[in-house]
């Protein structure tokens, strides 16, 4: 089987650009990155599906072809395209909603995550231990434990 270098270079280029864009914080760029990667993968499926050939329909031929092209690869790509399109529409809607709410279209940090990571030792100590012992109480006064039978005079 011959391997065509040109599609592979395009796949590589699309993936590289896609990953670069995906690492941005701006939502539109992330979406564009995602779309580029998905196109790269669709192209990859097409190129692993084998060489070109007759259309996989009974009785139809292309000029000069002897083999039939792989219909499964085309089916996979169609499914993948539909799925990606649906998700892309959803991401666009989310982006718009996020822009309406925050007036920036960037991914924000998780506020609770930020809070926990900036916590000082004493703050988490507060959650864990609460206020300390009650210091206003006179410790010379007898406690309930002092009245245990057999220990009346132990103080």
């Amino acid at each position: 089987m011959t391997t065509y270098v040109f599609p592979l270079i395009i796949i590589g280029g699309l993936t590289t650009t896609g990953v670069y864009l995906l690492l941005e914080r701006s939502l539109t760029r992330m979406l564009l990155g995602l779309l580029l990667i998905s196109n790269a993968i669709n192209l990859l499926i097409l190129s692993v599906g084998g060489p070109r050939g007759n259309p996989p329909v009974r009785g139809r031929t292309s000029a000069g072809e002897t083999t039939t092209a792989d219909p499964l690869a085309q089916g996979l790509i169609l499914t993948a395209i539909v799925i990606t399109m649906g998700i892309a529409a959803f991401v666009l809607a989310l982006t718009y909603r996020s822009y309406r709410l925050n007036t920036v279209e960037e991914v924000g940090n998780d506020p609770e995550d930020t809070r926990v990571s900036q916590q000082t030792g004493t703050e988490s100590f507060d959650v864990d231990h609460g206020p300390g012992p009650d210091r206003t109480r006179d410790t010379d006064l007898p406690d309930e434990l002092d009245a245990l039978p057999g220990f009346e005079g132990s103080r």
Partner: protein
Amino acid sequence: MNSLMSNPDLAQVLTPLPVLVPLLAAAMTLLAGRKPRLQRVITVLALSVVVAVSAALVYLADRDGTIALQVGGWGPTEPGMGPLGITLVVDRLSALMLIVSSIVLLAVIFYAIGQGIRDGDERQPVSIFLPTYLVLSAGVCMAFLAGDLFNLFVGFEVLLSASFVLLTIGASKDRVRAGISYVMVSMVSSMVFLLGIALVYGATGTLNMAELSVRLGDVPDGTRTALFAVLLVAFGIKAAVFPLSTWLPDSYPTAPAPVTAVFAGLLTKVGIYAIIRAHSLLFPGGGMDGVLLVAGLLTMVVGILGAIAQSEIKRLLSFTLVSHIGYMVFGIALSTELGMSGAIFYVAHHILVQTTLFLVVGLIERQAGASTLQRLGGLAAASPLLAFVFVVPALNLGGIPPFSGFIGKVALLEAGAQVGSVLAWILVAGSVITSLLTLYVVTRVWTKAFWRSREDAPEGHLSASAPTALLDNTEETMDIAVAERDDVGRMPVAMLAPTGALIAVGLLLSVLAGPIFAYTERAASEVLDRGQYITAVLGEPHR
């Protein structure tokens, strides 16, 4: 009844139902969008049917072995060849996953409906919730039934698309922010999966799992390992295995309680299920076991250390969720029958216990107006019943002896000791430490939220203004003083009963541990054997 069960066609009829029934019901609930009561009836009926069908499939798969359905009759053209169309396969593992998931899905929908009725979403436009939930159910079942890689991918996409909608329902500020990172990470994992599918197709020329299992044997070792690694990255993101797990505690806690509960229970386990299939059916021989063991160890330890630092209970539970995924990865990576059996048992246990805990947190949030330890206190005195429904699954998660968490962990430890390599012993030690730290984490929640009085909490005087509803359409929930909060009344029976039912099912897992563990052992040997699966799909013995 007996004659019905012995009909050989019955299994073929039942197999597609867990996917078809929820999908059809989703369409019907969309048509009934204006009639909330009818919507609820359809949803509950559909999910009950799925529970019944799954129970029958467990029985049939255990009695007759692997069931394969060639959808549309596009089976193999000659014995030993791959089928032309889509194959759905039920073996003991997928049947067990189906029954546990369908029970959880049914219980959570009762909880969600109960919460919705009680906290008044009759007026709110939530007609989208139930259809989406049904689509999610169909996606989960499809992933468990899929007999080829691309169908597994479609199952993932169906459940992911539904989960995107459920996670961002109401589209409040927090949920949109969490939703965006969740969508992006999920899509990247799907792209990696699709990349893996393309490469596997390029290497073998098929995507049917049974046929792949035969043909991948002829692929050179290096290529095989590379293919496995690509698929593992994709499944690892879905299952939240350590270096790929950071998205989970970021996105799950903001969703409404029932949604978080079902996500925490099911979605990561679908990833684990896919790892089991890839590891044992497609790429046997354990090429990546070392990597998986180290990843499992790090998942456990890093996850639980993250949980210790949290004070918000939902986030804390999300970290324990990540941490306990490590146990399952540990069991799978041992590549022994006992290890696999322990992992399968642990998956069933963990789906139930984690879902229950998130439902309980939903109750806590509703009753106390907060879900962070900084504000909670005195719940044991305020509501002993709530304390009870928290403490049973919490101890179960921590692995206290009579409960199923203990049984699963012991099986995994035994399997680790049986393998006996240095790495396996390190993992045994790691699991024990993680188990102790889990106990520490849940005890901390217990002492803070339940035992101390609310005045002792640093922000105990504050509370959220309204009970958290399914649809969070208030732009900002305000903080008000506890005393000013309207009394939300007693816990609704419609929310408490499903939680109790899940606890009961979890306890059943301990009471019936003997038979269930025997079942998971049969499932593990079936999964590791591969022969049954391949014969069921491809027809006569292939070699």
